[in-house]
Every structure is written in C-alpha cells, then in structure tokens.
C-alpha cells in the first residue's frame, strides 16, 4: 500500500535563479546607491558615491523609510526605472 504525507510547504519552490551576469564596464551605467537606514550606511555610500562620480559614473541616491521592512514597491519601481545597477549599504 502506498504511503504518503501531505506537503506542508508552499509547493512553489522555484528552480534556482541564476545571478545576473556582472557588467563588463561601468560606462553608461546609472547606479542606484540605496541606504537601508542602518548606522553608517550613509558614510559608506558617500565614499562610494565620490569614487564613482570621480570615474564619471552617474549615481542616484535612495533611502528606505525603515530598515526593518522591505523597500516599498514605489521605491523599487523608481530604482528599476531610473537605474541600471544597485549598490545597497546592507546591515551594519
């Protein structure tokens, strides 16, 4: 007699999602610098901003309302619309 159990999971386990391939060059990129609100994340992004700007790369600064929650959908949409890459100051 066949034995079975019922699946307690969401049954939507996706296939592995491969990472996006890394860009070969920064030329022409618009980089979003996202501050999630953790301590000194802004300091880290300030340094990156200066280095990238010196290289002639366009940057845009963004900040999440709170680090405790996922970025609001509007913010994600704005970044996706206006930028080609994201660098996130994640955690502390």
């Amino acid at each position, binding site marked *: 007699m*066949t*034995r*079975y*159990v019922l699946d307690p999971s969401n049954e939507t386990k996706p296939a592995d999602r491969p990472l996006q391939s890394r860009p070969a060059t920064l030329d022409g990129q618009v980089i979003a610098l996202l501050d999630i609100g953790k301590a000194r994340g802004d300091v880290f992004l300030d340094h990156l901003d200066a280095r990238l700007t010196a290289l002639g790369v366009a940057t845009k600064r963004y900040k999440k309302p709170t680090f405790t929650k996922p970025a609001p959908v509007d913010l994600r949409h704005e970044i996706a619309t206006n930028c080609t890459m994201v660098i996130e100051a994640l*955690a502390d």
Partner: protein
Amino acid sequence: MTDRRPALPDGLVVVVKRDCATCVMVAPLLREFDCVVYTQDDPAFPESVDAVHDADLSVSWHHEIETVPTLIRVVDGVEQERTVGWVADDWRRIIGIDTLGVQLPPFRPGCGSLSVDPNLIDGLRARFEGGTLHARRIELAEADDDIELMFNRGFSDGLPVVPPTAERVLRMLQGTDRDPQDIVAIVPPDLVPVTVEKVAINAVLAGCLPEYLPWVIAGVEAVCTTEFNIHGVLCTTMPVGPVLVCNGPGTAAIGMNGAANVFGQGNRANLTIGRAVQLVIRNVGGGRPGVGGIDRATHGNPGKLSFCFAERTADSPFAPLSVSRGFDATQDAITVFAGEGPRCVVDQRVRTPEELANLFAAALFATHSPKLHGGLGVMVVVGPEHGRVLAAAGWDRDRFHQELIARLNKPGSEVAAGAGGIADGIPAEYASLPAVPKFRPESMLIVHAGGDAGLFSAIIGGWASGALGSSPVTVAVHTTQQSEVC
C-alpha cells in the same frame, strides 16, 4: 476507495451490527415489514433477513450513522426521518405497525456505530474525505524513515516533526469549522496565501491536538499582519521572534500553562501552538535561517522554536491582557509580541508597589543596552508573588504602567553617544534634553504569569517598536467567523 455517497433505497432502511444487544433484540422484528437492512460487522447478521454487508462502512459513513440500530424512512432518495436505538413509539409510527414489538420494553438505547469507532474513524475519514485535501502528496518509499524524510525535505525546525498523513490532517481539521480552503493570511517573506488546510498540516508537524488549531490559525493571522511585520522580525539581526500570549476561557479548556514553569518545558499546548505558527512561517512563507534564508539573527533565542503561554488571570492584579486591548474577557484571544528570551527580575524583600516599580525601572533600563532609549519595545511579566504586592495596594495595569513609564527617563547627557564611556547612544545634539524616555508608552506590555512561589518576575526585551518595526497585535480565536484584529 469510495468517494461517492451511496444512495439509500426508497422505503425503510435499518442499520445494525451483531455486536449490539439492542440490534440483537430488534432483529426478529425486521421480518415483520419490508426494509433493507445494512449490517456493519457480521454479514450473516441478522439471521432473520438477508442483509447488505456495509463492509467498508461507506453507507454508514456517508449517511452519518452514529448509533445502531438506526431506522430511516426514505422517499425519492431523500431521507425523511430517522430514529436511533429502540424507541418503540418512534419505530411504530415510522413503520406504521401499531403492535410492533409489543413484547419489548418501550425504550432501549443503541450502541455506537462502527463508523464512529475511535479506532476506525481516522482511516474512514481519510478514505472518504481524503479527496477533499488539496495539498501535494509526497509518496514515501517502503524503506523511508518518515521522521528522517521530514528532516531531509527541510520541513523541520531542527526537532523531529510528526509526519502529516491524511488521517492526521483530517483529524486536525476537526478542530475548526472553517473550510479547509479558506485563506488565513498571506505569509511573508514569500507572500504566499496559506489555507486552513496548510495550517493544519503544519499543526500536525508541530504535534498539536485538533483543539489547538483555532489558536494556531489566530496566531498565524496575527503575525502576518502589517503591524506585526513578521518579515522584519525574521530578518533582523536581533534575537527576537513571535511571543504569543493567550487569553480567554479556552486556554484552560486546552490545558495551557500560565503558572509554574510558564516559559519552560512540559506543556503540550504552549509548546506546539507557538511551534506550529513558526513552522507555517518556515514552510509556507519560506522564512528560514541558514544558507539562503532571510532569518539573519546574530544569536536568535530558544523561543524561536515556540514561545507561547497563557496569561495567569484568575488571581491577577490586572484585567486580562486581551481585555486591555479591546476584547471581552469571555472571548478567546491571542496577542503576538516581537520578543527575545525572558530574563528574571528578583526582589525577595519587596513589600510596596513603589519598591516594585523602582526595581523594574532599574532592570528595564538595561534591556538591550542602557544607552538605547526610545525605539524598542518590552514585555513585563509580573510573577504572582510580585503581583500580590500590586494587588494589595490596588495598583492595576494602567497604574503600574504609568508608574514604570514615569521612572524610565534619563537626562540626555547620560544616554548620549559616548556618555559613560559607551560609544552608542542618542545623537549628541540631544544631550541637553532633561529627560529621554526609555520606552514609548504603547511599546510596553504588562502581563501576569508564573508559579505560586518566588518573588520573581521577568522581562522580555522587544524589538524596534511601532510603525518602524513591530507593534503587538491581538486577534480573536474562534472557528466560525473571520477574526477581529486590534
């Protein structure tokens, strides 16, 4: 396997079994009128007529035979009336023979139907109602160790789980009137709709009894609210998880513990309700620690397996927590709070409520860091012997809360970054403030729990409180209507 409800023939139908003295008593009567007899156990019984053997009990199950003998009158395939056991007047009226069984006593109760036999009912439910379950079935090979398979599939929180067979899940679903396909909540972080059935499967994993299921459902509903923010509670590096405080008469009915060793081991309801909620978050929501998981706690705490308890309300100086949050005392309710592990607060000499408030305030300053003020929540758990000090002085929850909040301020100069040789603290520009509160009033919960002996209480440190983090949420526990949320 039989999924369809077998039709009853028109006319009179009688269901009997040999292992029933009342059935044996009425058996000779069955040849006195036209009827179809179904026999549950012995196909040769009763000898007085040719009976149909309800070998798989499908007739008995689908027509909800709970007692034998049962006499049913059927017209055009529809049951018109029935009587159970031997009630002479009912049998004579239904059959239309005034003298039927005049030699018998006027009344004799019947026996339990085999279709409701406790040893058979789970298997029958799975056979006849298993098709109503929607969850994907995972086949077990003959050589599979069920427990190990559950580990290997990633369904466990690190402890063995109960394999969710259809029999167990269907039995669990008896704990609620809700449709198994009702959506309970959208579960973060993957934002997956979770059905009552899926909650029941995880309640089986956790080791719950069916009567716990409404509490698990309410707990899932509560933690999945925007206000509670389980996504943030999961992925924070801080050691918090859902702390579930249960109120209402149902806590005693299911044997929950709010007394001795209230946060400890040994009580099935306390330990499995909280565990089931966490397993739903893990298995349905996808919220897991470890490689690839979003639970990024630096340390976590053992309560992330289950941290669930009943408030001790019978001799509490306070109204139940749920009442303070807008519910009636007769309503079962569950409050969720994002908390770390409990720490003990000791004063074995305290005799006045002011001394107790001073003690708590001094201890509360140290939660997380004596330099962190303003943003974190806390739960104060007053033990019964400390609670008696408050009760004797007539301090209720509001009074104690006010007294604590009033004591929990420090000058900005003491809690500014760098003050006291400690780097952390509020920004230096606020150092001139005369008083900086440790907690916002709404971020402090006070409950009463613990054993009879010991002048001890407990503090459960919280997390980022309010709209920026997590707010406590209270949800009504019931089985027939959507929960009310405060």
